[in-house]
């Protein structure tokens, strides 16, 4: 276990309990982007809960969006696990983004069930700094399993899903629609358990380094 890191807000909480608008109760890791932190309960990506990211276009900074948090987890000497990558995760770009390659683990398997199984195992075990999963899944039970696994292991859990599912219900704690915007990326907060202050945030491209 790593020691307390001042920049992470660690507030004791019981996972899975609806807390209305008491945003401070959510345990989170800063997104590294002030405008986004301000819009999310707990001021960052929730720990021990599922965050869904649904890009409407590919190549708009949808992955770089979570990199500041991933870098922080690597500094805590924890690994980042990418599961079910849709394309080649390009190692030279990771190095340039400041992610140490020795902390990166990729799991590629053709069957979506196996990807979600692997994600669940890793989330539940709890040592990993973050799990980043791509899955076309749109059924309540598999999503709920992922959410429960993230709660059990108190891990950061990011799930990239097709944007067409944004309108459907999901047990994830945070659900974001990602759009291309002039000079950056527009983040529509579709759901934020623990209450959200703003519905939409635009992050400029420079902030996504």
């Amino acid at each position, binding site marked *: 276990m790593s020691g307390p890191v001042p920049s992470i807000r660690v507030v004791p909480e019981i996972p899975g309990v609806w807390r209305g608008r008491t945003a401070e109760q959510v345990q989170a890791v800063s997104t590294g982007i002030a405008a986004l932190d301000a819009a999310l309960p707990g001021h960052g990506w929730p720990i021990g809960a599922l965050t869904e990211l649904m890009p409407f276009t*590919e190549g*708009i900074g949808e992955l770089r969006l979570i990199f500041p948090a991933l870098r922080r987890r690597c500094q805590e000497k924890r690994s980042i696990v990418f599961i079910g990558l849709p394309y080649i995760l*390009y190692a*030279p770009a990771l190095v*340039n983004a400041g992610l140490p390659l020795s902390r990166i683990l990729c799991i590629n398997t053709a069957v979506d069930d196996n990807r979600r199984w692997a994600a669940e195992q890793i989330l539940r075990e709890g040592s990993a700094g973050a799990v980043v999963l791509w899955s076309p899944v749109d059924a309540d039970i598999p999503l709920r399993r992922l959410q429960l696994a993230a709660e059990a292991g108190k891990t950061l859990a990011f799930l990239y899903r097709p944007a067409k599912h944004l309108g459907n219900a999901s047990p994830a704690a945070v659900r974001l629609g990602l759009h291309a915007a002039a000079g950056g990326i527009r983040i529509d907060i579709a759901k934020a358990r623990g209450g959200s202050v703003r519905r939409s945030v635009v992050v400029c491209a420079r902030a996504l380094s």
Partner: protein
Amino acid sequence: MHAPIPSPTLWLCLHLPRLPLESLTAETDTAVAVVDRKGPRRWLIACSEACAVHAIDAGQDAILALSRYPELKLLERSLKQERQALIGLAVWAEQFTSFASFDPRRLCMWMEVGSVLRYFGGLDPLLDKVRHGIHTLGYTAVIGVAPTPEASLLLAHAAMPPVTDLTKLGENLRPIPLNLLPIHPDEIASLSALGLQRLGEVLDLPSDALARRYGPEFIAYLSRLLGRLPDPLQPYRAPQRYRRRFECFGQIESYEGLLFPLKRILIELEGFLRARDAAIQRLQLVFGHERHDPTVLEVRSTVPTRDAARLFLLVRERIERSVLAAPVEEITVVARRLVPLGDTQLVLIDGGIGNNSGWTVLLDRLRARLGDDAVHGLELSQAHAPERAWCCVALDEKREAEPAPDPRHARPLWLLPPRELDTLPQLLGKPERIETGWWDGQDIRRDYYKARTEAGADWWLYREEPSGKWFLHGLWA
């Protein structure tokens, strides 16, 4: 300086009355018995616990037993399989002793333990370890401990407590009934005809009179029993390479059926590795089938291990995701390369306490279920062509030092297989020329651009020279 006082010899004997059954199957909750032929008749020689309910016991005629319980499952005795089981036990026992020996005819195994008592903290802790091990291996054993091999077996038969002092051995053996002695029933009958019932009464007789009546072999046995003559016991020596075969008494068709023999084999393997202060990272499982090529499975561990429970988990996951071509007739487990260990690593390798052990166990499970190639790390490689500037690395491979960022050459997070473009999005900034020659195995000349599509996506494109064609090669995700 004093020379160390040699420890007195002490033998631990495991008598395995149910070995004929337990070497074949782990079934105990159904009525199963092993039969052996004696002349024209077939006799039960070992029965599962569930047989007792139907008043079926070893020593009964097979026909009689079937009349009591027609559902009784009968298995033919396999001397070969019993011998294999004893060899496996001797391999397992090497973690406790440097001298293990067995007698397939008398269903027993001996271990010399006098020299290791101090290492294990005395006889009782050692007996606890042995009993626990025997139980997890799935055997029923009675233990006898004495200064001579024959006496230890006799004490096991008589279920009597350990005798450690050679000078008190004769006295302690006196109450043992004669029918437990390994002599012909006719001789026992003739001794009882003389009014003798216990060993002590026989020992009181003058030995020349006994020799005349029962032959010199009987006298030699008594001498070995009491330690007056050395026992010609030969130690079993395991080969340095681990290879264990298990023949299935019937074909195994279910995955669960494979688990019992594999669990036993892996516990034996742990004993083998402990005896050599070693661990393994790879294990090969070969399943033999009738009229089919054998199925060969490799199991790999991220860190060297010898923990049977951990290996079992890996093996189970590996089998779960494999398709076996046909029912299994025979299992062979091979461990080729042993990794030597220093004492300092033990805690981590034996599992449980190490800081990262949960994590490495998890990685092994993932690899066992999804395949070795499915779980990998990333590394840079020296090639100039962008598609070859990276590579996958296995988790147990040695890593290069962490590379430094190269901010002069921006790269996209997603790399795509090159796709030719008909229409061009808006190009941004200056191109980056990437050239490789024949020395790189590929002759390419490309100008790379960042470009923005109408939908607002950022692409990584290149114009190929000399063809002038445009290709999409990456996404700035």
